[in-house]
Every structure is written in structure tokens, then in C-alpha cells.
């Protein structure tokens, strides 16, 4: 099983310079379906699924490896190496923004530009730092995953639950987007929401663009400002788009911002 198969890597376009898109928690490379095509002319587009999501090889999942974001960052570096990526653009959404930060410090020549969509180096408030969530709220989130398993996974992953006794449900709920293994999603949520990568921000030399949405309950404005302050060569752009997924809700604004940056 090669790295490219493991992460279901898709490459489009023939340009020399690569633009790698990394999806966040809760989805897969389909996240970028409204944004990535806009860059196919000028860039070699690289799309992939994190292990445990979409079309990745679930058997490659290791609780130990993926209990910190380092494991995901190692995968990004391996994908980059497999495709001879240099001076590329990394576009990471949500938790993958921080995965890109870690990958960039592991392989400094791989990425010259980082686009961080809705990033957060730490979700839990701590001292003067405001991440947007109390520790209790994050516990509640993780409990939700544990306790609401059936309803949640029905909606998210009908193919995994199986619907032998109600085949019509499978038909109704078939979901070709955002496929996630419920067990892995639980663990990914824990890894994501318990992470603290504030100290890693200073290690990055690449130019960075922070795309901060308005009214993002997952990564509030103050978090974007914190990153801007601690990430050496960074720009902060507060978007008109609301929510956590401007790549879906406001693809045009997102494309324009990236284009202007690179």
C-alpha cells in the first residue's frame, strides 16, 4: 500500500507548482469541490483524505500514530515527498491548518505558502488564552460522540452501520460525501479538540494567509488574531462568509482570497 493509495491522493493538472488541499474534521476531500477546480490551470492540484476519512485505507489507521496531529503531519510530508513537492501552496481547513503548520516545520522547503482556513492552535480556553471553548464543553462534545453513537453514525456513515434489516434506509441515507468511520471520527475529534499547537506557530518560515470567517463558533475571531500575532510571516483576512466552512458557503470569496495571496 503506497502513501498515495493510503491517503486516496488525487492529482489534477500538469503545472510544476503544487497546491495541496487538506480537509478538516468531519469531511473528506469533497470539501474542496467548489474551490480546487479554480486553480487547476496554474497549479498541480493535490487532493487527499486523511486516514480514516473518505476513500483512505482504514486499515492503515493507528490509534497511537493519530493520537496527535504529528501523525497526520507526517502523512502530509510523505505525500509531498512521494510527489516531489517543493515551494508549494498548502491549503488547510480547520484542524488541517495546524497539520500544515506542523508539516511546514518538518519539511521547510516543501511549502512556500500556507493558506489557513478557520485555524485554531488550541480550542480550549487556558489562562489569558481564549480558544472559544471551556474544558467542560469539549468534554460534552466528546461525550456526545460516545453517547449519541447510533443516531449520529446513522446520519454520517450509513454504509458502516449497515442496514440489513432496513435496506430502504441505506438507500435514503446514502452519503457519497464526507464518509467517516464513526470509531475513527471519535478519536479524530479527541485528537483535534484536545490539541495544543500554539508553540509550533513560531517554527514556520513560509508566508501564511489566515482566512478568518465571521461568526465562526469553532474558531472565533480572537483565535485568528492570536495566530496572526504569533505566526512570523502571516496575513489575517476576516471574511464576510459566516460559519466554519467558507470553502463551501462562500467559495468565490475563498478563491479570490487565495488567488490574491499566491
Amino acid at each position, binding site marked *: 500500500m503506497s502513501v498515495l493509495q493510503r491517503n486516496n491522493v488525487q492529482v489534477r493538472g500538469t503545472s510544476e507548482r503544487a497546491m495541496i488541499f487538506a480537509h478538516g*474534521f468531519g469531511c473528506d476531500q469533497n470539501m474542496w469541490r467548489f474551490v480546487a477546480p479554480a486553480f487547476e490551470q496554474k497549479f498541480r492540484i493535490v487532493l487527499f483524505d486523511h486516514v480514516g476519512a473518505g476513500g483512505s485505507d482504514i486499515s492503515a489507521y493507528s490509534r497511537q500514530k493519530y493520537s496527535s496531529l504529528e501523525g497526520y503531519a507526517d502523512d502530509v510530508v510523505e505525500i509531498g515527498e512521494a510527489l516531489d513537492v517543493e515551494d508549494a501552496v498548502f491549503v488547510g481547513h480547520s484542524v488541517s491548518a495546524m497539520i500544515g503548520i506542523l508539516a511546514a516545520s518538518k519539511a521547510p522547503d516543501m511549502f512556500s505558502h500556507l493558506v489557513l482556513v478557520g485555524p485554531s492552535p488550541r480550542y480550549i480556553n487556558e489562562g489569558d488564552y481564549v480558544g472559544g471553548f471551556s474544558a467542560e464543553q469539549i468534554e460534552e*462534545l466528546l461525550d456526545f460522540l460516545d453517547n449519541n453513537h447510533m*443516531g449520529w453514525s446513522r446520519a*454520517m456513515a450509513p454504509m458502516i452501520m449497515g442496514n440489513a434489516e432496513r435496506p430502504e434506509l441505506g438507500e*435514503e441515507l446514502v452519503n457519497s460525501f464526507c464518509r467517516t468511520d464513526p470509531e475513527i471520527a471519535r478519536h479524530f475529534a479527541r485528537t483535534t479538540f484536545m490539541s495544543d499547537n500554539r508553540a509550533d506557530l513560531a517554527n514556520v518560515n513560509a508566508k501564511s494567509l489566515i482566512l478568518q470567517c465571521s461568526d*465562526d463558533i469553532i474558531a472565533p475571531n480572537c483565535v485568528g488574531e492570536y495566530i496572526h500575532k504569533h505566526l512570523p510571516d502571516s496575513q489575517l483576512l476576516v471574511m464576510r462568509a459566516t460559519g466554519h*466552512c467558507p470553502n463551501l458557503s462562500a467559495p468565490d470569496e475563498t478563491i479570490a482570497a487565495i488567488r490574491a495571496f499566491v
Partner: protein
Amino acid sequence: MAHDPEPGEDIEDLFENAPCGYLSLKPDGAIFRSNATFSSWTGFPAEELVGKRFQDLLNIAGRIFYETHFAPLLRMQGFFNEVALDVVGRDGQRLPVLVNAVERRDEAGNLLFIRMTVFNATDRRRYERELVDARAAAEAASTALRDLNAGLEQRIAAAVDERMKVEEALRQSHKMEAVGQLTGGVAHDFNNLLTIIIGGLDSIGRQIDKMPESHELARIRRSRAMALHGAERAATLTARLLAFSRQQALDPKPLDPNRLISGLADLLQRTLGETIALETVSGAGLWRAFADPTELENVLINLAVNARDAMPNGGRLTIETGNASLDEAYVDALTEPVAPGQYVLVAVSDTGHGMDEKTLAQVFEPFFTTKAAGKGTGLGLSQVYGFVRQTGGHIRIYSEVGEGTSVKVYLPRAPADVPEREGAERLVEFAAEGGPETILVVEDHEELRAFSTGVLRELGYNVVEASSGRVALEVLQTSSDFDLLFTDMVLPDGMSGHELADEAVRRRPGLKVLFTTGYTRNAIVHNGKLDPGVNLISKPFTYEQLAAKVRALLD
């Protein structure tokens, strides 16, 4: 007065009071319309809902999941169905809901609004909870069952393993038994022959004593002495074989092992030589053991010789005594039958080169030896083993290569009511004198009978002979009074020497009885031990021995 419903009035009612909540959302997610059902469930009046986003009505986890999963899903596939979430009502109460959402677009594909349908899932969530719990319970039970099965396999494997070991030990024990019977049988026949040979040589000796000295006579005397020496060595060998086959006649008595050991210390030290230190550790309050003292001495000398040979460069031999209780658990683990109870332990330990496991497994086999050819008979430990087993004891050998060997001999504790006799009873040396008494000799082996009767007649006794128990009883019926019955223990025609003696004594009270045997498993020797008060002369015996024993009995 009833009036016709206004156009759309029923549709309005259907929307407001449907069995589900309805929400209409602008493309940016803001609620612009809701129905009465949703308001009644959540406590939010319709006007308070306007402008809120649906995710604002959710608990924190629901909000995160809505943002990361369901909003993207709705945007990408245009709908989502049956998403399980918790709506937080105006009073903070949570309402489990299932949510469907669908984007409504115009013909050009522009998003007009989002229609959201909310089902009260309180009952269903409870049902699902029960289902999840039941599945967890079933999985736990299945896991427990699997573990049990795995454990069962392990237990079976262990039991099979244990069984194999027991069978192997049983084979070993059967082998020892078979070898014992074989050697016992050979020794028995050999003893009979030795008795004749030694008797013949004795007779020659007595005859030549009466002849005038000459050069030829001296040569005959030397040859006779050599032959007698060889025959005596052969007799020693058969005695050892009988010991191993647990068929030697033992004369167990209560004895104090400490006293026996201290009495033997000088001899042991001489056996060991100067380079080996002898140390004895006597257990306090030591019980008396019930064993044949002469044979126990032989055992200790045997073990000392083995220890000496294991310590060619010197070392230390420790003889230790102590009381020991072998419990049921201990004896159950043994392959040979050993009764649980109280034992007296005599442990002989050396600091020699020790033995490996393969050697240990064979040490009790007769003729097994680690000594150079000609240095040992390979009978020492097998003799010890036979003696201990015949005595009703137990023997264990512990050995570590390079560290030494410890042989532990467990002897049965003497019954408290048996008084200790002073020291080992020694046969009093009588002068070879005869007497006028009448002796009935019963022996089926013709040449042996001829030898015995020859000796006794030579001594001056009246001798009547019989070849079996029945013939002997007929003789007793008709002939004059007898003073002594001298009988072999094993006789043909279904009557043993013991039975014959019992019957003879019944008919003639006061009749003395002397038994002889090469080996025996008959009734006179219970488990190889002599009944108290029974007199026995072991084959092969000499002229002097028989003469002395007969005279002592008659007196």
C-alpha cells in the same frame, strides 16, 4: 355560527400544527419562519426564533457537529436526513430531535431557502439508548464467552499436558516394575543355585579338613577359597538385585536415625576420604523411623559413595535429619503411591558436580551408571530406591549441575506403640553344633533340599524331608514329634510355606518354625516386611549360618 374555512386556512393549520416542527431558513442560515409545533416543543415564540441560526438552538456538541458535518453535507448534496441532535429549549431543557433539511432552488439553481423538518425523537432516542445498551451487553457477553472458550482451550491443553506427564511417569514406573520383576526372578533362581554352590564348597571344606595336609590339598583349599569368595560376591550382587526389586526380606524396627548416623560416622568419614568434610545436622525432637537398620546403613553408605564420586576435588557431605509431614496435595502429585502422613527425613547432600535432568530421570534404573566402566555396578541408587519403596517411604532427588545433589529419604514414622530395640540386632555367633532334635525340612528344590538336610544331618539332627506342603502335612500326621519345621516360603501344589506353618503349629502347638527364601511375595512377608516373631534365614546361606540359626531357635 360555523363558517366556511377561508382559502388556505386548512393549509395554514397543517403547517402550524403538523406533528413535526417546521423551520424555513434563508440561504445564510437565518430562520425567517417557524411553526407552532416547534414553538410548543422549545418554548421559543416564533418572533424570538427569527434571525437565529439553527445551530444557535443546539447544545455545544451539536453546534460543532452541525458546523463540521451537517452544514457541509447540506451544501454539498443539497439535503440531509435523520440527523440526531439535541435542541436546547428556552428553559434549558434538551429535546432530542431528528432533523431533515433540504435546499430549495429556483430553475437557475439559485438557493431560495432551506426547509428544515424537526421530529421529536424523545421516545426513539430512549429506544436507541436501550438498543445500544443491549448491544453493549451482548458484546460483553460474547466477549466473556470467547474468553471462557479461550480459557477452556488453555485448561484442556494444560490437562492434556498433565495427562501426558502422568502417562510418561506411569510408563517409567511400569518399566521399573517390569525390570524389578525380571531382576527379582533372576536373583531368586540364582540364589537357589548359589545356595547349592556355597553348600557344596562348604562340604568340600569340611571334608578336606579331615584329610592329611599335602601340596595338592593346599591347592584344593586355595581353589575352594577362591570359588567361595566368588560365590559370596555373587550372593551380594543378588541381594542388591532383590533390594531393587523390593523383594529382599526386611526386618523393620523402630530406630533413631540420629543414633544410627552417629554410629556410622566413622565408617562414612573413612569412605569419604580426607578431602571431603562430613557434617551432620540432627533435627530436634526427631521421631523414630520404622525401617530395617542394616539396610538403612547400607543406604547411607551407598549415598556417601555416590557423593564422594561426585566430588573428586573434595567438598562437603551433609547428612540432615528432620520430621516431615507429606500432605495429600504433595503425595497426589507423585506418580508412585505414597501414603500421606508423618515421615522422618534423612537428607544426604553433597557439593559435587550435580546431575542434569536426563540423568536424574534414569538414576533409579538398575545398571544405570555415570561412573567409568568397572567403577560401579549401577545398582547403588536402584537399591536405595527399592529399599525406600519397600519400607513404605519416599525418595526425592534434587540436583543442580555444578551445584550439587541432595537425596531426601522419607522413612515412615515408627508407630508409637512399638518399643525400640537396643541397636541393630546382630546374629549371635553360635558354634556350629547340632543336637538330638527332629527337624522337618520342606523344600521343593531337590538339590537345595539335599543340601539342607545334609547339613542338618551332619550336625546330628534327625531330619525328615518333604517336597511340598501337602506331603509335609502327611508326614506330620504320621510321624513322631517334631521340634522344628524348616520350610521354604514358596512351595508348589497351592500351599505356601506360611500356610503350612500355620497348619502345622495348629496341629502341634509349640512347634518352632524357620523360614527360608530367595525372594518372596507371599503372605509371610507383608509388603516385604517380616511379621514380628517370624524367623527367617535368607538364601543363600552357609553351613555355619544355618547351624547357628537352627541351634538358636531350638534353644
